[in-house]
């Protein structure tokens, strides 16, 4: 059996979901026999590849890079999973939305709070501009699987991945699988 082409992506989130993924600890070793990690913040591949079987997307769609990449991911992925609360609900990343958009938070972080050389980093091609409204992944592209949690526990991630590698339909039911936060 050929290995599952597997990717994880870090969008507008804190990387806590990836940390939780690493908390799979020793199960990572048998997992490595079943999947081939073709793209991830923890491997050094710059371009999202084609023909990916499963992609876990951590984080909300918060800047222009996220917005461009998510369409590529959707095109190249069979099963796209929203991985963690930010991807599923926009969560903490989305807390800037009620405040009135990116300008307000950028001002607060880079101008109001700085005594020395207050400036908003906006160099073209270096820092991707924030989009007006943070969105959960499914508001931009169709999503096949939702894994809530902030972060999803290693136990929950393992329960999902076991089903995926076994080629089974993943059912998200009950507190263990569905509780947000």
């Amino acid at each position: 059996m050929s290995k599952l082409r597997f990717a994880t992506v870090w969008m507008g989130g804190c990387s806590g979901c990836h940390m939780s993924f690493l908390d799979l600890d020793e199960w990572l070793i048998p997992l490595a026999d079943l999947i081939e990690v073709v793209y991830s913040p923890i491997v050094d591949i710059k371009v999202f590849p084609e023909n990916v079987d499963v992609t876990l997307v951590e984080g909300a769609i918060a800047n222009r890079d996220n917005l461009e990449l998510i369409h590529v991911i959707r095109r190249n992925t069979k099963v796209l999973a929203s991985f963690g609360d930010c991807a599923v609900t926009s969560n903490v990343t989305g807390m800037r939305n009620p405040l009135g958009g990116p300008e307000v938070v950028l001002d607060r972080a880079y101008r109001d709070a700085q005594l020395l050389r207050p400036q908003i980093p906006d160099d073209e091609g270096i820092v991707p501009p924030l989009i007006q409204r943070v969105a959960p992944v499914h508001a931009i592209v169709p999503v096949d699987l939702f894994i809530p949690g902030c972060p999803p526990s290693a136990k929950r991630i393992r329960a999902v991945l076991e089903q995926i590698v076994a080629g089974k339909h993943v059912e998200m039911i009950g507190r263990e699988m569905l509780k947000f936060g």
Partner: protein
Amino acid sequence: MTPEELDRTQERELADDAKYEHQVHVCVGTACVALGSATVAKNLEAEIKASGRDGKVKVRCVGCPGLCALGPLVEVEAKDKPEDEPATLYQYVKPEDAREIAESIGGAPASRLQADTRQPFFTRQTKIVLENCGRIDPERIEDYIAAGGYRALEKALFEMQPQEVIDEISKSGLRGRGGAGFPTGLKWATVAKSNSPAVTRVPDDILARKFVICNGDEGDPGAFMDRSTMEGDPFRIIEGMVVAGYAVGAGKGYVYVRAEYPLAVKRLRSAIRQAQRSGMLGATIMGSGFNFDIDVRLGAGAFVCGEETSLIASIEGGRGTPRPRPPFPAESGLWGCPTLINNVETLANIAPIISRGAAWFAGIGTEKSKGTKVFALTGQVNNTGLIEVPMGISLREIVFDIGGGLPEGRNFKAVQTGGPSGGCIPAQYLDMKVDYESLAQVGSIMGSGGMIVMDDQTDMVEIARFFMEFCMEESCGKCVPCRVGTAQMHGLLTRISEGKATQAHLDTLTELCDMVRRTSLCGLGQSAPNPVLSTLRYFKSEYEDKLVKDGQNER
């Protein structure tokens, strides 16, 4: 006023009227007043007085005769005019036209201002509810008595048992004019046989244990049937309420009117005071031993207070929000007591039914919808105004005959009935009979009587969005489906309007329509999706044409 005094008052008034050779009626409904009709009346009186004819010509301020589009309206009627001859009607009368009209009285009409009274707008109507509107001075109880007022009350109090009154109303086939069309007699019977609770929450100063409420919280955009009735013939509503109170055994009534109708409130209050002074309200009415009094309660501008349980909460002094039914107000309403709630127009039908008999009323209309219905005809139609037509008339007759069709160069697309709870009816149903069942069948409702004509330039998605915005703003916020569902549906309709929606959004909208309709607490939420559902049913392509085709929505 005893029955004998009533007779004497009527005779005196009729004799007084007979002294005048001409009657001049000036409309003082809200629309005509806004265009200066009060000054027209004042100037006419001054001109007639100046010409020394004030003993021969009587100027009377009256309620709305209906054709608001031509207002201010002035009608001149000669005493010796043959019965089938219409009176002379003047349109667009300005204060400075008073002299010209005054001088023409008794001679040739002032043709420059004359309106065509032979047009279908006047000839095709059947007036029951509005029979006194445009005929009597709504601020004089004597005018009402002269026109035969209080004869129904007299008959009910002295010749009928309460049960007989209820039977008469049941036999007439009258159905609630507030929109849902519940049989009025059945509602009365339920209230009559409901027992008042032993311990009530009724405030100490109110002795009654059953109540009658007149729902005058008319809130549909473009609707002004009840306003015109309250402004033009308030005594008829009061008489209907007293008869209702007698039939169901209530001792106290409330007229709940929205505060946005200051003129209606003023005239109702004046009418109640006059009725109280004449002994037509209060203790032992007409010497019969039956006690009943009425108070006016003002709404604070919430559409949802037209819903009966919200209205009751509002009268009780609480926040105007609905509560689950059952129990229905007929069993447990105002302060936990059995309460009869009827719409203004329903109550306005009571006096004629009692006076002329159930059989007469049942002879008008269709098999299941009896009598007439008042509609406020607005939108892209020549004769905007207030009309009263027999049930069973076709939409085509209303729009093209009575309404005079659409303005030059415009084509009919749909007619919207029932306000934000109703739907849009397309051209293919123009020949459909207007009654409760037929309208429901094509996805709309009778509603309280708003009727908006739309031409082919109307964007139906925009119409749905407008009504949804209205429902969203007017949702009381108590139940989740209505509060959040209307906001979400409005968001989706806006997205479709702006050309940013996909088929998936349209599917979500359709699903939400079903859910909000089925799960909302009160009629506001349950009917809020109707404008969307009916436009989706008949004008789906207009929605689909606005969708993004690639299946992905960019932000």
